[in-house]
């Protein structure tokens, strides 16, 4: 693949043309992209940080009820490596989920009682129950999901897409991140700015975090005492001064800087307009839930995600924290489900009603699964689950996905995959495919090597694609 940007850099200097907001105009895609006709133009990735328990939400295992408190057979565990938190546990008692499951929709997808709103849209969702990962701890596992590698330093998936596809919007970044704190495990599992970092890609491809408190984008607001008119005059004076120097030095960086200040000024208008939910009609809040009125909630972020999608932002990623239920699982997961169920379903429905779902890919999932065996004490109404990389469930919806499909299968313990395993590289390959990109061809040369999101792996999961 010929890296058009690299070529341009060679010709006129690194930052002269391209920019975070794509000051060069056009769609900003690399030459040769799309490699295939894309089936979606943007991605909304609802990342559930901490690892939601598939046992409680999606992966119905009726036979476990009879095996309650019995030891997980060695034939199932197969000597798999465990985290240091339970590796020395002397007993691995099976903990069946205490929540009721039922089938929903035309597709008859199984879902637990914790997700009543998702149940109403199951026919739009494509469940993958056979996700698996190599990582057993949060930091490396989330890093792996985000970058295709367990150690920090590589570009995140959103940065890869921004690099490959450029931006559709000239006033907003191509890659936006929003964070919410769940009601579950609050203390653990921090996130890191590097999770949406651009790694070795130029930093203009990094995700821009939209915050719920203070400025939605850092340093967006003028300081107190400076109003819009004063800022306008300031920018005009600044541009006039910079142009004097430009005439002396002819350095294209100076023109770029002038246009970046203009872009900044546009963001000062476009971002507050975007994050202002006051003009949303009441039925929006009926759909997403009253939580959506509270800035910083998952529901509010889902609503913002729709508004970002409407404005052509390429990659929108939500991180919802609090899914790490080592102990006290039943109580915590009820809260986590309440945080996310209605708004996730609302987002799918809302996008659909607005005709956006057909070219938006929505992904819902965490970094790994949770164990069938109990961590800590197993009582009638309390138990916990440790990390489980061997299987977990995610769902995808929207452009190019087979709606109403349940793909992949785990054994009756929900411990091992028995059919159609999908790993993180496969998921990445499939997301890129969906965006019209051949994952083996989106590369960037760094330290002598042509890196790609899927490292040296990744198979497109054609079975879940509608095309």
């Amino acid at each position, binding site marked *: 693949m010929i890296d058009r940007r690299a070529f341009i850099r060679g010709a006129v200097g690194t930052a002269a043309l391209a920019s975070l907001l794509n000051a060069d105009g056009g769609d900003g895609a690399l030459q040769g992209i799309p490699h295939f006709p894309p089936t979606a133009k943007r991605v909304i990735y609802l990342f559930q940080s901490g690892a939601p328990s598939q046992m409680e939400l999606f992966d119905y295992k009726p036979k476990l009820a009879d095996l309650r408190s019995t030891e997980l057979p060695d034939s199932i565990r197969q000597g798999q490596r465990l985290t240091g938190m339970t590796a020395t546990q002397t007993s691995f008692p099976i903990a069946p989920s205490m929540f009721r499951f039922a089938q929903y929709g035309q597709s008859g997808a199984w879902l637990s009682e914790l997700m009543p709103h998702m149940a109403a849209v199951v026919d739009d969702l494509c469940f993958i129950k056979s996700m698996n990962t190599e990582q057993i701890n949060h930091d490396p596992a989330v890093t792996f999901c985000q970058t295709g590698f367990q150690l920090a330093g590589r570009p995140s998936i959103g940065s890869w897409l921004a690099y490959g596809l450029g931006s559709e919007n000239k006033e907003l970044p191509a890659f936006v991140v929003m964070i919410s704190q769940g009601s579950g495990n609050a203390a653990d599992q921090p996130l890191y700015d590097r999770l949406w970092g651009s790694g070795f890609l130029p930093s203009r491809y990094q995700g821009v975090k939209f915050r719920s408190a203070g400025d939605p984008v850092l340093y967006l607001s003028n300081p107190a005492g400076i109003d819009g008119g004063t800022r306008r005059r*300031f920018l005009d004076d600044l541009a006039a001064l910079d142009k004097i120097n430009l005439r002396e030095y002819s350095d294209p960086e100076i023109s770029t800087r002038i246009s970046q200040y203009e872009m*900044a000024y546009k963001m000062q208008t476009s971002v507050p307009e975007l994050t202002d939910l006051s003009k949303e009609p009441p039925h929006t809040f009926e759909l997403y839930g009253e939580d959506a009125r509270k800035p910083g909630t998952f529901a509010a972020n889902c609503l913002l995600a729709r508004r970002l999608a409407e404005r052509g932002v390429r990659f929108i990623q939500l991180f919802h924290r609090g899914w790490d239920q080592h102990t006290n699982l039943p109580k915590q997961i009820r809260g986590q489900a309440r945080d996310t169920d209605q708004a996730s379903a609302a987002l799918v429905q809302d996008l659909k009603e607005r005709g956006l779902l057909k070219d938006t890919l929505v992904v819902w999932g965490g970094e790994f699964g949770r164990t069938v065996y109990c961590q800590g*004490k197993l009582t009638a109404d309390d138990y916990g689950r440790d990390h489980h990389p061997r299987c977990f469930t995610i769902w995808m919806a929207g452009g190019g996905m087979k709606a109403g499909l349940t793909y992949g299968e785990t054994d009756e313990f929900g411990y091992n995959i028995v059919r159609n395993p999908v790993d993180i590289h496969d998921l990445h390959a499939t997301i890129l495919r969906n965006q019209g990109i051949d994952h083996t061809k989106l590369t960037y040369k760094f330290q002598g090597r042509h890196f790609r999101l899927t490292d040296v792996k990744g198979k497109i999961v054609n079975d879940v694609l509608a095309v």
Partner: protein
Amino acid sequence: MFGRFTFGLMLCAVAAPAQPKPAGAEFNRDIRPIFSDRCYTCHGPAVAMRVSKLRLDSEQGAKTVIVPGDPDRSEMVRRIMSDKNRMPPLSAGPGLTDAQIRLIREWIREGAVWERHWSFIPPKRPSVPASNAIDYLVRAKLGREGLKPAPEADKETLIRRVTLDLTGLPPTPAEIDAFLRDQSPGAYDKVVDRLLASPRYGERMAIRWLDAARYADTNGYQTDGERYMWRWRDWVIDAFNRNMPYGEFTVEQIAGDLLPNATLEQRIASGFNRNHRGNGEGGIVPEEYAAEYVVDRVDTTSTVFLGLTVGCARCHDHKYDPIKQKEFYQLYAYFDNIPERGNAQKYGNSPPFIKAPTAPQQAEVKRLDDAIADAGKKFAALNSEAMRGQRAWEQKAAREMEWSEPRALVAKFPGDLAMAGNFGFYDKFTLSARVNASTPDGPILTRAKEGKDAPEPTGISVLLKDGKVHVNLVLRWLDDAIRVETRDPVTLNQSHHVAVTYDGSRFADGVKIYVDGAARELKVNLDQMNQNFAVKEPWRIGTGFAVDQVRIYKAVLPPAEVAVLATPESIGEIAAIPPDKRSAAQSDKIRLCYLDQFAPYAIQDAWKTLLGLKEDRERFYDRVPTVMVMQDRPVPRETHLLLRGAYDHPGEKVERGVPAVLNPLPAGGSGNNRLTLARWVTDPANPLTARVAVNRFWQMYFGTGIVKTVEDFGSQGEWPANPELLDWLATEFVLTGWNVKAMQKTIVMSATYRQSSKASPELLQRDPENRLLARGPRFRLPAEMVRDQALAISGLLAEKIGGPSVKPYQPAGLWKELSGGEDYVQDKGDKLYRRSLYTFWKRASPPPMMVNFDSPGREACTVLETRTNTPLQALDLMNDLTFVEGSRVLAERMMKEGGKSPEERIAFAFRLATARMPNDQERTILLGSYQYNLDRFQTDSGAALKLIDQGERRRDPSLSVSDLAAYTTVASLILNLDETVTRQ
């Protein structure tokens, strides 16, 4: 300077013997990059990757498909031009470009001369005039390109450029004036010497080194707790300021700990290889991360010193460079012999670490030691008097009298234990009790509650199990606790004194268990404490059997004092024993009791002064910073190749060694350890070390290295823009004894560096990246200089070298929203205005302004400087409190120091930022802006007040509000100028 060169001289240069052929195709420059990038994946050095027998990384291999002199008869040419079975194959992407094919044909036509990869051949010193070799070599190249160098930059531009480049801060108006006044030929020379002698030079040089060494103030994984490596950071600053030769600088950082009689400073230097991230996440597999730390050291050391991407050989033979997987693990073997653990501490430094007092702290320790010695002498002088006094007192000591150590006692039983002494994992404590156990199992003393993840409790527990004394300090039973037990049981139904001390170190070897006053041998059940184990529970005394005389101290009692505590006899009973029949503990006990309560005032005073000083010293020493260092195990660990790089797939055993393609290890010396490796790196025979170092220096001054890929000198790296220049600089560096300051001076003294950076549109078109250097370098300042400059010209900058990292302004909530835990607590006062290299660097949430302006994230070694130009930078410079306050304080300076008229004041600020006076046009715009804002703020004084009341630095209330606000806006305009944030 420039005038001495003429175009004629440049033409001569073309004919100089040191110059390579101008045209044609050269293997190293033109052909190897094509082979490497497009062919070596299958036909390269990596055995496992080779799908065919054909090797294009060796001359022998390549010549099987090449007929030298005859491209048309060469199979290689046939295949790269073929439509049907083209090489590289379709699966490897597009074919070679026409230009590439032309080059290969040309190279074959000229005889297909093969060369070893350039960077593995030691640099050859070109024969050029040493006085101005840089200019000679740059101009030779320009001559070949038919270009002329630019004239020297004007003096104002020059002094600003060189001052920023060498110190990271702008020149003051006085410095500019002095330079403008000095018409002597040595004027610039003097400026350069002054700058190189400034302590700011070390700070400036350190910044890039911190990026390379992935220095940070947090551990980098998960909770991302704080660590303390600033003593290493200060060592770097000091080394640059002392002009430590680069060879020593290298040796001390790779193996300072192994130098004979290593000094504290040399051991601190070895912290270079401990700056990597450390994982303290609960539940990790320690072996996995232990391997990652070693890999990081190998990668960083190779990249920083050798410009090699050896990390590629971790999983398989290197695809492009002649580095075998086995050789990667031979390097690995130098770095895996450290007594470390894969599970790093969540908070603080992970072993091995040392106490690293600063020079003033060392002086204070010495002062305290002297005072202790002095007080000891004074007390000793009273000894015979004390002995006499004690004997007299013993005669009348009451028979039932009892005494125990009162200092640091926080609670006792009988008495009220309750909530006193709620110790956490950083706290020192001693627990003691007398126990008479009727059964082998039961609690003695606990401060604990029911555990979350296991049946065992969380908190502090001292208990008997199978008759053995167990001490459990637990947050999570399975993976976050210290758990130890005595090897031998106590005797049942017999009174024992049990004491436990914990030194707040968070390690099992900081726990001691005494039974009847004697320390017992311990078995460690778990040594993995990461988080505070304190619980909101009262102390509870075991009820299963008799527990009595409980004492809780907030200090670690030394063994002798524990023995005193364990002495069952009362003072009266001891008094009744003849002195020569008393045990040591009995003697101690009665003596301590006497000194504590009954000695005459002078003796008590001398005794308590001595104790007080010892406590002072301990308290002081506890606050002395630590730093993580390298250390070798006495018996080397066996190293195995890791199959596919996986920690749990060891392959063949390997011995320490260096890649065969490079110079051999230096002869002589015994053993082969990290020090041997360090000597090898700095061996003048090493073809890479000097080149890589000077190339990085070059990048600092010209924005781009002579080899653009500063991180990769392998075959995937870029061909040097001027190979002779690189080699001259490299050989010069070695010849001068690795003199770092001399090298900086050589570069900045060159006419090449001093050229004006103004360029014609034609030249920009021709050489957009300025690789030919027909003009001076012009690029945006690095992140820290953007901020430091604003602080400097506003007068806010608080200059102080070194010390713990500081927390200047950053938007509230950034840490908390990522972690839900602790938030950033901004500092106050001068700490807000320190140079940016002292800003606290949290890896999970680096300082946003630094990130906006392209600072690397410090997760891993970064040597390539990158610069972007984004709207986020614009927002930052306009709206970040750092710059808003900076503008206001600069405005105050304008009003107080800048003269009387708006014109003067504006020119004053403009010159502070750009080192020059504004021209008429600029003056008009700035004045217009001032007037506009003055009008606005005069009508809206509320807005004016809001603008000028931001930031912690109080404004001068004597200045007119609307005027100050208007100047603040103008100052902000000046700080936002492209010229201000650029060194041009």
